[in-house]
């Protein structure tokens, strides 16, 4: 049994390091999603205004973010900003910026969809009782779309957690990077460590994302009936 590759997990603090890597992954995703919700709501509102210039700008932003592979955006922010403007961003900050840009686009489009599905008269009755435009959004419209957006936001979070594996490429030591380091260090002593380490990561991702999807499903069901 001594030869089983599973022992690689218990060498030194390997498992703790993997968990720590996973935590970085989750932290980046959560911060990015939180920011994306805030900016996404603003973007969604902007996308519904009549002003053609604002409309065109939001459209371009959306298309740009969608067409660009996230990796390109990551390199653009991490290397591009550093090299061209001398702004020194850590890998993690760059990752949060890029995922926020991406999440804002995704959320913005969802918010826009939710907003245009709210009948015009909900805005009007708000206006008629003396609410300002902003108050109408704050007290009437946003509460109505929130129930629809929360499951979508959670779904976005799981997608982000999965996509965060890319940030290893700009030097952030997240879970996959830790995995590679461990495998590398044990290449000769535990030749089949890759299977065990990646297998473990499979479950780590699963247990990070599964509860989140469960919550999303339950919320969706709960709000559908009310």
């Amino acid at each position, binding site marked *: 049994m001594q030869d089983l590759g599973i022992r690689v997990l218990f060498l030194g603090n390997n498992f703790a390091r993997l968990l720590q890597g996973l935590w970085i992954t989750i932290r980046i995703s959560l911060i990015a999603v939180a920011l994306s919700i805030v900016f996404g709501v603003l973007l969604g509102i902007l996308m519904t205004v009549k002003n053609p210039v604002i409309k065109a700008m939001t459209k371009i932003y959306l298309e740009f973010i969608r067409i660009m592979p996230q990796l390109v955006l990551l390199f653009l922010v991490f290397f591009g900003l550093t090299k061209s403007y001398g702004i020194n961003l850590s890998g993690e900050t760059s990752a949060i910026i890029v995922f926020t840009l991406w999440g804002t686009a995704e959320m913005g489009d969802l918010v826009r969809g939710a907003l245009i599905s709210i009948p015009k*008269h*909900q805005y*009007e*009755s708000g*206006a*008629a*009782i003396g*609410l*300002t435009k902003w108050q109408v959004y704050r*007290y009437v419209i946003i509460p109505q779309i929130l129930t629809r957006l929360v499951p979508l936001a959670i779904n976005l979070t799981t997608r982000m957690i999965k996509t965060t594996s890319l940030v290893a490429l700009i030097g952030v030591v997240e879970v996959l990077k830790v995995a590679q380091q461990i495998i590398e260090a044990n290449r000769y002593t535990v030749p089949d460590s890759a299977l065990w380490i990646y297998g473990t990561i499979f479950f780590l991702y699963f247990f990070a994302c599964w509860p989140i999807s469960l919550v999303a499903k339950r919320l969706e069901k709960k709000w559908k009936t009310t």
Partner: protein
Amino acid sequence: MLTIRDVRKSFQENEVLKGVSIEVEKGDVVVILGPSGSGKTTLLRSINFLERADSGTLDWEDIHLDLKHASRKDVALIRKKTAFVFQNYNLFKNKTALENVMEGLTVARKVPKKEAEKIAKEALDKVGLSERYDYYPSQLSGGQQQRVGIARAVAVNPDIILFDEPTSALDPELVGEVLNVIKTLAKEGTTMIVVTHEIKFAQEVANKVVFMDGGFVVEEGSANEIFNHPKEERTQQFLRRILPDYDYAI
């Protein structure tokens, strides 16, 4: 008290209001009659700026506004002095009856929550919904929803309430309960403009009747003048159409 002069409004090529004027004194119940499409809704909506008129003026005590160019501040001022009851109730569907009524108080007028709740409950009691504070619109009948709509309007203590066909969307058996609430308000001296096709109701409460057709005010006068002695051919035709057994004195 409130004077609207020469309101014009077009949607694209379609001129819907062709210079409409209307005058309301404190305590007046002004009923607006007219065939569908004559611009009644648009007129009411222009008064509280849900629709931006192309021209026209609004005078209200010491407020004098150009309807087309009124500033955001002026719009806010007018909306605080008016309340609107919609044909389709238009309640906030994610809020209970009580919350619907409180919203205009707590948010728009910064009334403390406790006090707002007290006022809102009184308003709901007044329209006979003291048992329905915590119901959502989807759990209420049309008549009850419209009464919440009226309570929402009453609660903010407006100088004038604008009713746009408040009973047109209701099943016939629910019309009475809503009209009774409006009658009570009228008797208490609430100033209001009511667009309605309920002639009996109009005869009972209106002290001024305006007949509109094709974007114009065709004729106006007391309820007695309009219903019993209409001068204009178009008014007579309209009354004959909606009152099959109508027989006016010449």
